[in-house]
């Protein structure tokens, strides 16, 4: 199973979650974060200007298509980072 982690502008959260549904995930976890990157510092004191980290456990094929869609639809325009890693889950049938 894959864990896909996405760090992006907080105002994108709803859009990314919509995209997650579209590629066929049935759950996700998210929380507010702050950070820095090419688009400069993003501090956490105004949620509209802060970041969110979204984590989702998915089957490898879904991870692939999720990353592809992030790449083609959102990466060019938004402050964003995404990565994938291997995890072993309890109840794999759930995902």
């Amino acid at each position, binding site marked *: 199973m894959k864990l896909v982690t996405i760090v992006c502008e907080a105002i*994108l959260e*709803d*859009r990314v979650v919509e995209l997650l549904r579209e590629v066929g995930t049935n759950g996700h976890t998210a929380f507010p974060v702050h950070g820095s990157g090419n688009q400069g*510092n993003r*501090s*956490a*004191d*105004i*949620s509209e200007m802060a970041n969110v980290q979204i984590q989702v456990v998915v089957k490898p094929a879904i991870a692939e298509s999720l990353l592809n869609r992030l790449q083609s639809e959102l990466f060019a*325009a938004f402050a964003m980072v995404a990565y994938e890693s291997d995890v072993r889950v309890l109840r794999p049938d759930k995902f």
Partner: protein
Amino acid sequence: MDFVTAIQSNLLSPAVLFFVLGVFAAVSKSDLKFPEALYSTLTIYLLTAIGFKGGVAINEAGISTVWLPALAAMTLGAIIPLWAYPCLRKLGRFSIADAGAIAAHYGSVSAVTFIAATNFLKSIDQPYESYASAFLAVMESPAIIIGVMLGKGALGGKFSFSDPGVRHALRDAVLGKGVLLLIGAMIIGSLCGKRGMASVEGFFVTPFQGVLALFLLEMGMVAGRRLGDLKKVGFFLLLFGITAPVLHGSAGVILGHWVGLSIGGATLLGVLAGSASYIAAPAAVRLSLPEANPTYSLTAALAITFPFNITVGIPLFFELAKYLNA
């Protein structure tokens, strides 16, 4: 000199001075930080309080008094991006998206600037139409919608409502929390009237001016962190950030005078027209015009126009309103 006194009395208010302190905290890289929850809470409080008070005032004044100036305010908000956009394109040489984005910010309004103006009027005992927060409520969205349409290339026929980013953004602009709290609290206030006000006055009125001071401390930090971006935005935008509020604000004062508002009311309409949105517009514009560079619009709205308005703009529009009324 009257104008100097007005500026002075405004500059020496707790609200403005706490803003300056916030800028200093940011510039000196102090470790002072407001928790995100405090920022949201202050926003919710200020919008709810101003909406509720406005609603009680509408209840007193009657909707028949309010609708005409409100309509005028709304129209003004919708028109501003229509002239700002070509100006930004031609004179400022901004891209279509950037010009639309900046136009959306300056057509929309800043609730905090408005609240600071009501405090200014209160502190110099200048009466004003309390229902003026209705203007605030109706001026937020139209300019955002028009600015986004322009930025998407509406003039070139390229705009479409089916773009998912546009849909999200326009939904938020119309049903976003700012509008919802303002209009919602206003309806509540107009249903409750004076009786309802009596019960919640200790929360929505008593601490209100102090809460604003605290909020401006945070705003100062946010604006201060943007100061470094001033050199990135170019001279034209610096100029625009000061000229636009003066022009729009004067138009607002004149319009207010013309539709029969008092000196205080015309001042407030001027402040609204002259102010630039730094929360609702940025979020909506970011989602729908991601190709626009937020550094331009946010820096102009937050680090130039906002400080200009709460220090010089408010007393300026007040003097203009007085002059028109004389």
